[in-house]
């Protein structure tokens, strides 16, 4: 086995990708054990990916040995492998995306007590393919006075900004795209790019509804990024690193157990981030016909659509990575490839939750949306962050179990307090709504009713 030589090469590869990793995170490299920065130490000799427990790594090593066999320089080899990896993952994810279309439609149908697609193929499984074909053969219109370049780039960016995030999500203990030590920040960054795409689309289509949609997007996404970032910081505090793989490795106990508040905040703000109901103000059909992609048709619209669905799944994967232990699950240490299934299982769970919310809740008003963020979510997130940070420092020299228990208890207290505050606020609101409306001449009005004030107030009180 040429492992010794291989080691040196791979070390150089690391030096090289030390430079490249976060720049071309788009490039998805299949390098397994070198980038594995977990707590688990591999004894030399026993290398995962030798056997079929970790096929992808195995293939990667095999390819490397071959390429090096032909005598390619390291840089080129890395490039080839990288591009290869990127292609594989992108195709894989997009395939899932197509399946998502079918799933979404089925689930919404069930929620609305319909059957959903059931004509093309068994259970309508082929339906999305048909949709894609339809989208492709549709006429591709470009509105007059549109800014052609931007108009055409926007959908691509929209989809790419979602795909990029998959670069840092670890699939198995040994398989992660770009093991950047600032993965969390990375995710936030490319969320911003997504916003950019929407703005470009909205502005360039030269349509006031589209522009309105873009405005709303900016208002919403930028404001909801804040609680999201703060909530993301909490797992970072637990793990002590911003690298996603590190966060997953640190979760012997799932983070959601010790930080439910942060999890909830992350979920809500991500739903707002992807602009799904109840936060779908950026494409509110009843208000601004379809928002930013009103002018798009054919595959360009398809890209937006796919991007949105995929973004939801991405959020699911992200959430399960940060709070549900990512690839963790039974036997995953022995058979790393299982991690993929665990990860996607959890991701689909969260995705279903998001759909559930989407199809159960109505859309909220825009001012409510902003108030909810600035007056409730952000302060709550800040409080949670402070509490977690302080506790984390206080509990350093406690055993893990005490740590977890105290964290959980504090979180529950926080939740309770929040509920109390909300109840007080809500009762105040109800009073405000339900109080006796001022009338021109109360006595006259009441006398016409032929009641005295007290009974009138009683009735008004009863009416509320």
């Amino acid at each position, binding site marked *: 086995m040429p492992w010794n030589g291989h080691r040196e090469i791979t070390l150089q590869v690391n030096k090289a990708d*030390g*430079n*490249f*990793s*976060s*720049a071309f995170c788009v490039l998805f490299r299949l390098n397994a054990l070198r980038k594995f920065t977990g707590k688990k130490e591999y004894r030399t000799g026993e290398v995962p990916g030798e056997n079929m427990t970790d096929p992808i790594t195995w293939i990667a090593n095999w390819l490397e040995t071959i390429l090096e066999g032909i005598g390619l320089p390291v*840089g080129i080899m890395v*490039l080839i492998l990288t591009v290869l990896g990127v292609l594989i993952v992108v195709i894989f994810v997009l395939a899932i995306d197509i399946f998502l279309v079918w799933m979404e439609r089925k689930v919404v149908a069930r929620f609305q007590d319909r059957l959903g697609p059931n004509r093309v193929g068994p259970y309508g499984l082929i339906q999305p393919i048909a949709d894609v074909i339809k989208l492709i053969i549709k006429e591709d219109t470009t509105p007059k006075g549109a*800014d052609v370049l*931007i108009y055409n780039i926007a959908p691509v960016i929209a989809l790419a900004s979602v795909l990029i995030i998959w670069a840092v999500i670890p699939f198995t203990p040994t398989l992660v795209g770009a093991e*950047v*030590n*600032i993965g969390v*920040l*990375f995710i*936030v*960054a*490319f*969320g*911003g*790019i997504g*916003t*950019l795409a929407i*703005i*470009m689309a909205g*502005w360039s289509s030269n349509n006031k509804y589209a*522009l309105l949609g*873009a*405005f709303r997007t*900016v208002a919403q996404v*930028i404001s909801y*990024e804040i609680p999201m970032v703060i909530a993301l910081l909490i797992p970072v505090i637990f793990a002590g690193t*911003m690298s996603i793989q590190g966060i997953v490795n640190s979760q012997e106990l799932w983070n959601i157990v010790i930080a439910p508040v942060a999890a909830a905040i992350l979920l809500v703000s991500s739903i707002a981030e992807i602009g799904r109901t109840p936060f779908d103000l950026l494409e509110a059909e009843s208000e601004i016909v379809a928002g930013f992609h009103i002018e798009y048709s054919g595959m360009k619209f398809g890209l937006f659509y796919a991007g949105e669905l995929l973004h939801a799944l991405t959020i699911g994967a992200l959430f399960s990575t940060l709070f549900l232990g990512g690839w963790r699950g039974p036997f995953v240490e022995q058979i790393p490839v299982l991690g993929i299934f665990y990860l996607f299982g959890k991701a689909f769970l969260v995705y279903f939750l998001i759909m559930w919310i989407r199809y159960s809740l109505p859309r909220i008003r825009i001012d409510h949306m902003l108030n909810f963020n600035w007056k409730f979510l952000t302060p709550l997130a800040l409080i949670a962050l402070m509490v977690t940070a302080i506790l984390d420092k206080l509990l350093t020299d406690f055993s893990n179990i005490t740590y977890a228990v105290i964290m959980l208890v504090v979180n529950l207290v926080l939740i309770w307090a929040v509920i109390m505050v909300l109840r007080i606020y809500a009762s105040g609101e109800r009073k405000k709504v339900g109080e006796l409306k001022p009338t021109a001449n109360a006595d006259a009005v009441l006398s016409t009713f032929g009641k005295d004030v007290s009974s009138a107030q009683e009735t008004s009180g009863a009416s509320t």
Partner: protein
Amino acid sequence: MSFEQVVFILVAAGTLGAALLVVTTRNLIHAALWLIAALFGVAILFVFLNAGFFGVVQIVIYIGAIAILMIFAIMLTRQISSEKSARFNKNWLWAFFISIIFFAGIAYILSLWPEFGTTKPILSAEIDPVKQLGVALVSPQAYLLAFELASVLLLAALIGAVIIAWEQR
């Protein structure tokens, strides 16, 4: 010419081109988008300098916030592409010459610098720049005060922006 150098030259050239377009295009939105391109290029250059953290922060702050805010402001001030007014003010030639002079001066002075051609020292594997930076920013011996001042500055800017842009009605 190594792979690295080629990439660098491409990125740098792209960035400078984008920057030039920023200051020359008539269409404001295009200028903003070119600005984003330039900023992205700068981010990549940060990565070349093993400062991946700064690369990503650049994307978060500049592209994710600043550039989008600018686009937002452009849309609010309705200076959409249709304005055919002059893009430069009348003393733009002066500005051009001054910029050239500055560039030339800086380049000349730099070229006199003995270590002008130094290449990167090896970044030893065990030091983690991000960790170092974090420690330095919050350690009283280092930049704690500056850090806090920056946060106060941001708070002040936040409030100030709200107050200034407030619509009195």
